[in-house]
């Protein structure tokens, strides 16, 4: 049973736009929420991560917003570039485990 739901499935923005990818989870016993970026033919790579005691985290042009009461978190990419074109996955980790439960993925295209 999928416990992390990600939307949209695909997204197209112009260069400089701010794509937003959303994830919602169903289980409150998660203690870590990472986002992974994947380029074609490559394995996913950690982009940014947040813990539930923080409402927002920024790293460069990437920001995670976390709403614990709504059980939702989202990724914002500021000043998006064509090089950001990739598939993005959110994930959640059940507390006290090493497992990750992934969302379905979002394919982002940033047009020049």
């Amino acid at each position: 049973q999928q416990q992390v739901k990600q939307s949209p499935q695909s997204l197209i923005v112009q260069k400089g736009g701010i794509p937003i990818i959303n994830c919602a989870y169903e289980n409150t016993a998660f203690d870590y929420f990472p986002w992974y970026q994947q380029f074609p033919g490559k394995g996913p790579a950690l982009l940014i991560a947040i813990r539930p005691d923080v409402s927002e985290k920024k790293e460069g042009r990437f920001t995670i917003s976390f709403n614990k009461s709504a059980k939702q978190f989202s990724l914002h990419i500021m000043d998006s570039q064509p090089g950001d074109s990739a598939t993005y996955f959110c994930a959640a980790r059940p507390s006290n485990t090493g497992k990750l439960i992934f969302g379905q993925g979002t394919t982002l295209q940033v047009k020049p």
Partner: protein
Amino acid sequence: DAGITQSPRHKVTETGTPVTLRCHQTENHRYMYWYRQDPGHGLRLIHYSYGVKDTDKGEVSDGYSVSRSKTEDFLLTLESATSSQTSVYFCAISRGGPGDTQYFGPGTRLTVL
């Protein structure tokens, strides 16, 4: 690059044949994972290992077995491959404990005809 290699990188096989995928790491990390990636499903955990000869099932373990006789190698076996196991398989490691960031290998694309 987390020092993870996967072999083979591509494989085509027929239904009913056994298949073994290998994950090799060069940094002697204790925790290793096998995922499969399918459109519309993201990545799903098949099996994981927390040490030599210590393994456990993930959410989609049916039809798969694993073995870890050495720290550096984690093998995934499909005893009798089915078309539903056509997928891209990723190995991952945690550099510290199980709660640390997972780093992924380059993947193996498996096609079962």
